[in-house]
């Protein structure tokens, strides 16, 4: 073999290796475009106006159509979305300047500018709970130029980007014409956003159809949480309401659906054996609470609230609610989900899950309780709520309480819980809150009315304090006060069950809500 031949062989080999390597790299990255994802969900959204409602189904759907200035990353911290970067804050902390990304188009072809952002945020500030909270501190919001917005604050607060970034009831940016045409209390009925998918058709009880928005410009960062590069691989998403949970499971098994949400834990085994689908445990779901009425009635008595807390043995309750499976629950006393790591506290000695009947009896006596019935509302529409209410009743009655369990439908429960005269306690679940100041169980304007002075003082300090370490110390203090005042009874964390087709690639299992960008079908 001559030199030249040898050289040629080596070169050829190297070239081949290079091709293979490059090819493999491309292959690993190649998520195919095309296809339809059929998602089975519980029912119809009350609206596709993100500003209007806190309903989770609206949150899930609208986050595909619209975007806000900020969103949450893998660590549930704010990251820029339609804004170019995190805001520039003046030295006194009172002026925020937001720079917008340029060349972002709405689904109607119009370019997004600061006028659209100002009009949308104003509308959001009057209807959304997060908007109202934030704009309580805002004195002025204006467009400085085509791509710059300035926000002036009354005082220094720590909640600007987080409130602009939460995915629920979120600060979606609509075209100015739409944001101004629909009053905040009226639902928007023209759905135009900047998101990777656009709404094609909404046929109630049949489907909500979304299609890829071809003029979408993804960000350059890697996908993270709800943000970063969002790429629509699939041509179309069909959201199909399938109210019966057994039907949703069957349709996953037959391949009629590619994804199903809100399944019952008892379908887990069936899905594991399925040839077409696989189960996904939704790790951030709800922690269960019994919300106590602190405005009127028996539970205004702090001793009684402490007695309730002392009496409970929560593990058997949680285990039962989770269908006996340990994968579906977690014992935790934190007031924010453990997955939101920056707010996770580790404290010992809090009076949680004590299972101390004697202590409970003593507290009842000290509270002057004479066995009056305590009206505890729950509903069978959410089986887990009913289950934990029933077991709670049993345990509390063992400790000397008299519980009048009132089982009503969900619509009745959510209506009644706003009237302090109608109940003493009700069941619900608390989803992820991304900042302690957003917590509804610590809010004076949410049912149950946690208007306790000390809790509100700590909360206000946390809104004003911008230093994370100091905020965290306040948060630890909040836990102590919480377990002393007992505004609500915190049970364990419950997890949800979802199912995905085995053909579905790239689904982010870590986020609370399901998202179908960066997802493809094999």
């Amino acid at each position, binding site marked *: 073999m001559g030199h030249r031949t040898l050289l040629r062989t080596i070169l050829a080999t190297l070239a081949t290796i290079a091709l293979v390597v490059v090819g493999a790299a491309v292959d690993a990255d190649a998520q195919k475009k095309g296809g339809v994802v059929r998602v089975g969900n519980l029912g119809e959204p009350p609206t596709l106006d993100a500003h209007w*409602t806190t309903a989770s189904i609206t949150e899930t759907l609208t986050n595909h159509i619209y975007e806000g200035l900020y969103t949450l990353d893998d660590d549930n911290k704010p990251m820029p979305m339609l804004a170019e970067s995190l805001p520039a804050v003046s030295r006194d902390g009172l002026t925020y300047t937001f720079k917008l990304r340029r060349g972002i188009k709405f689904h109607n072809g119009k370019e997004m500018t600061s006028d659209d952002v100002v009009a949308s945020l104003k509308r959001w500030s009057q209807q959304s709970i997060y908007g109202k909270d934030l704009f309580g501190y805002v004195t002025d919001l204006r467009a400085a130029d085509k791509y710059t917005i300035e926000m002036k604050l009354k005082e220094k607060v720590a909640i600007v980007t987080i409130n602009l970034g939460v995915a629920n009831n979120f600060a979606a940016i609509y075209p100015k014409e739409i944001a101004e045409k629909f009053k905040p209390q009226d639902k928007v009925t023209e759905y135009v956003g900047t998101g990777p998918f656009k709404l094609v058709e909404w046929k109630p009880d049949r489907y909500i159809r979304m299609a890829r928005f071809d003029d979408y410009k993804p960000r350059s960062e890697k996908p993270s949480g709800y943000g970063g590069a969002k790429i629509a691989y699939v041509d179309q998403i069909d959201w199909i309401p399938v109210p019966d949970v057994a039907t949703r499971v*069957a349709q996953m098994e037959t391949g009629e659906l590619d994804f199903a949400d809100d399944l019952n834990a008892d379908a887990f085994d069936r899905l594991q054996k399925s040839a077409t689908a696989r189960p996904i445990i939704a790790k951030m779901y709800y922690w269960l609470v019994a919300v106590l009425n602190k405005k009127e009635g028996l539970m205004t008595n702090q001793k009684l609230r402490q007695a309730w807390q002392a009496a409970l043995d929560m593990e058997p309750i949680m285990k039962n609610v989770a269908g006996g499976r340990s994968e579906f629950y977690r014992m935790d006393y934190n007031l924010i989900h453990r997955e939101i790591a920056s707010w996770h506290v580790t404290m010992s000695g809090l009076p949680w899950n004590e299972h101390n009947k004697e202590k409970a009896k003593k507290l009842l006596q000290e509270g002057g309780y004479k066995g009056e019935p305590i009206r505890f509302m729950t509903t069978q529409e959410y089986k887990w709520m009913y289950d934990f209410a029933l077991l709670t009743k049993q345990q509390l009655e063992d400790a000397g309480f008299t519980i009048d369990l009132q089982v009503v439908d969900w619509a009745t429960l959510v209506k009644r819980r706003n009237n302090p005269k109608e109940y003493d306690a009700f069941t619900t679940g608390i989803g992820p809150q991304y900042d302690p100041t957003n917590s509804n169980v610590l809010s004076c304007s949410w049912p149950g009315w946690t208007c306790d002075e000390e809790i509100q003082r700590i909360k206000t300090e946390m809104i004003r304090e911008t230093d994370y370490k100091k905020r965290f110390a306040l948060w630890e203090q909040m836990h102590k006060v919480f377990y002393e005042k007992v505004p609500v009874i915190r049970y364990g964390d419950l997890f949800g069950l979802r199912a995905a087709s085995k053909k579905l690639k790239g689904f982010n299992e870590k986020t609370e809500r399901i998202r179908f960008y960066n997802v493809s079908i094999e």
Partner: protein
Amino acid sequence: MTTYLVRRLLALIPVMAVVVTTVFFIIHLIPGDPVSVMLGPDATTSQIEETRKAMGLDRPLYEQLVLFYTRILKGDLGRSYFLDRPVTTALWERAEPTIVLTLTSLFVAVAIGVPSGIIAAAYPGSAWDRVLMLGALLGVCIPGFWLSLNFIYLFAVRLGWLPAAGYASVLENPWAALRYMVLPAVSLGFNQSALIARISRSCMLEVLQQDYIRTARAKGLSQRVVVYIHAFRNALVPVVAVIGITMAILIGGAVVTEIVFNIPGLGRLIISAILRRDYPVVQGVVLVTAAAYVLINLAVDLVYGFIDPRIRYD
């Protein structure tokens, strides 16, 4: 005949008025309100109050009733709180699936029920009779949703012959529509066929014992001619009445079937509307179903005349 028809149609008005008013009060008197459901679990109390006001739900009930009646007289059933469209549009969209489901189930019910009843009656006490009537007993006893779920598991999940749930329009895609409709129609129809079978059997038995049948037999006519030509028509009147009732029941029974098989019909609409207190939609569906009920009854009464010429309308 025409006078009879006009009189019956006029009698519809007070019936509908009673239905409408009753529904209005019942739905408004159950606790719960649409706003708290719509705004979601995290909404604050003040936000709920503001929105109630904006929607006019804080007004007194009688004012809302007057508004409701003035609208109905103009042919306007109001606007759904949830669906962002007029109730009439929503009803119109759901009418087709329910009509198709009701008619196909009725077809299944009659196709199974009438022949089973006749065969059982023609050979009373035979093995056929016993097997068929046992089937009818099962049909009455098995809950519809249980049967539906088992059908789905067997024919869709295990065997993969038919889709588990869903709906396609007959007008757009007849083949797909048929595939989707088989399981719901059979599970809904099977339940109802039982009643038809039992009624057909007893009516047939009664007729078969009458003198003219004995005469026909004595003339040497075959069993087939006696049963199908002579007896059948006379046994039919009560059967038609039952079929009419069945159809009305089917409209109601469609509720569960529509949920399980995910058929976007009126039954599913009313269930979700009740759960979320979408008052205009509930009122609209009840109004339309009640009208359908009354009209079916009228149609049944008219059909009698054709089957039995002795029945006269004066």
